[in-house]
């Protein structure tokens, strides 16, 4: 009996140690206002496993080390985990952060926690995703996702070379801010609006490659008379490509994507995507940390939306579209030097 309860206890300990958010702590104390000298930067990402956020976190940590700032990273457990992010903000304040960099899971879900932190004198900067309203944070360093979508749409339009588009769209999580902005930007870039007859169908795949493949297979059953595919990010683009390939349609279709991860750039190089639009999370993180250092020294806060830019990556450059090739893309995926 004793052995059994011991096993149960061990098990409980293992479970406790392996679940929940990952935490990195490097300081104690509770000074949390600007102008006091040392920057204490807390980073809250949407998750801690997505390579995009890993890149962002690594860049922020490196920038903090280079600038003599303390650094701590927390994350929600999944994309959309508002509660996890609120807890992360509370924990960072408890630890005495004077700047919080956050990639908000939803544009509205964490606003109260952000307001409380700002009221207590903490500088809050949104990275990657803007809040709604945008002035809920001091400043936003992010990709202009609408512009990124627009670049993708403009490329696809140019690649069609005057042929009217027959478009299938693979969206992400319906209603999420980034999804809506990229979707709208793409349609503007290609010169359509929601409801245009040129849009032959759309599917929402929540960022899941297998769901994107399934959705695309079902859409293609309706009609294979298409010439353009929008994918909201690269994993879903790969799923869509698998469905197109099985139908032997890849030759007649221009597919664009957004993200700019090394793997997505490789997909461009391999010819799966005609183009992808690269984001620069490393810039967001570095600029965020530099702002934190500045705030700690002088009390000066940044403000407004700072676009960290996006770039079209393609091996088929087109007139009128500024782009880089996949070799450049592999060197610079997500803004990191590889």
């Amino acid at each position: 009996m004793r052995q059994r309860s011991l096993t149960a206890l061990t098990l409980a300990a293992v479970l406790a140690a392996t679940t929940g958010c990952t935490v990195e702590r490097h300081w104690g104390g509770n000074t949390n206002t600007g102008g006091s000298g040392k920057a204490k930067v807390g980073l809250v990402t949407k998750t801690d496993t997505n390579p995009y956020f890993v890149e962002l976190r690594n860049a922020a940590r490196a920038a903090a080390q280079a600038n003599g700032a303390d650094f701590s990273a927390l994350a929600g457990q999944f994309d959309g985990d508002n509660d996890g992010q609120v807890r992360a903000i509370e924990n960072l304040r408890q630890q005495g952060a004077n700047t919080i960099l956050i990639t908000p899971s939803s544009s509205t879900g964490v606003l109260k926690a952000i307001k409380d932190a700002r009221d207590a004198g903490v500088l809050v900067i949104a990275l990657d995703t803007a809040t709604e309203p945008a002035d809920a944070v001091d400043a936003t360093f992010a990709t202009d996702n609408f512009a990124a979508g627009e670049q993708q749409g403009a490329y696809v339009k140019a690649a069609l070379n005057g042929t009217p588009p027959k478009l299938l769209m693979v969206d992400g999580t319906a209603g999420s801010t980034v999804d809506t902005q990229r979707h709208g930007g793409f349609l503007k870039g290609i010169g359509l609006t929601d409801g245009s007859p040129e849009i032959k169908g759309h599917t929402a795949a929540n960022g899941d490659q297998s769901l994107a493949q399934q959705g695309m297979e079902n859409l293609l059953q309706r009609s294979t008379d298409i010439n353009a595919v929008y994918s909201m990010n690269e994993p879903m683009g790969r799923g869509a490509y698998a469905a197109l390939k099985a139908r032997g349609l890849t030759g007649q279709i221009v597919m664009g994507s957004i993200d700019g991860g090394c793997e997505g750039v490789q997909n461009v190089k391999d010819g799966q995507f005609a183009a992808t639009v690269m984001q620069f999370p490393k810039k967001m993180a570095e600029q965020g940390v530099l702002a934190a250092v500045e705030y700690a020294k002088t009390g000066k806060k940044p403000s407004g939306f700072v676009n960290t830019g996006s770039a079209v990556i393609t091996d088929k450059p087109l007139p009128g579209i500024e782009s880089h090739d996949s070799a450049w893309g592999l060197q610079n995926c997500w803004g990191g030097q590889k």
Partner: protein
Amino acid sequence: MTTVTATHARERESLGEFLLRAPAVGPALALVVAIVVFSLATDTFFDLDNLSTVVQQSLVVGTLALGQTLVILIAGIDLSNAASMVVATLIMAKLAAAGTNGFVALLAGVVLTIIVGIFIGGLATRIKLPAFIITLGTFTMLTAVSKLIAGGQAVPVTDGLLQWLGTKRYLFGGIPITYGMTLALLMYLGIWYALTKTAWGKHVYAVGNAPESARLSGIKVNRTVLSVYIVAGLTFGIAAWQALGRTPNADPNQFQLGNLDSITAVVLGGTSLFGGRGSVLGTLMGALVVAVLRSGLTQMNVDGNYQDLATGALLIAAVVVDRIARRQQQS
């Protein structure tokens, strides 16, 4: 479709009793109705290629649901099956990418899912923890492991054997059949045979119905439970192989809801969540119904949220039928 709860023959039996005796009939009817409706509603649904595609779309969840059926038959539940499968796909893909022989890579993935089965079965029998809790913990751990292994990145698969189930196909009466479809069918037949024609199958139903009576009648309950989790683990490993045949990348972010999808297929297939009643043939229908709904509704241009709404409603309807059948049996 024999179950130990089968009532003795009567001259007239109620609908509830009939469904209780033949739980796969309801889902089979639903499947036929759905196919007929979509075939009439669209010009594109009833097409041999499309029907083949729909079956291929249901393969991974269908194979996950096969193991899930066994677990639910003994009144357990496995929330970790899809996560275990995803880890297996990553192990297979990573090993193959590192130059390991495809067969060895495949075996390594399957061994992993079997080890997970032994882990869950061991905790369920030795410490008597509820399956829900064990597999919830295992799910959380395995999800983390998959992201750690992959670093969040998808791993491209190029090994021929790992893709074999999806890439190799032949024509049967004009319908394209993949080896993955063939394998799934053989697995369903094998487990159906084991459940209905062998002593092991009788033990599984008996343990699910009333473990104490099963024990008193000389059935080694723990051994049966452990064997179920091991066989289920094997099916999850093969589901990983099916997944690599379907998608050319092992991606840690896919099949996030595969566990719930498999439970949906099992319940739609008429297997009782309280254990002891159900059949793998019903599960096969259940998995197909979901894929048919998705495919047909997409071709009718119905928004994804309404598709989820329809699937959820059907799920609740299936549980209601199960409840009514049980109540009629009791009264």
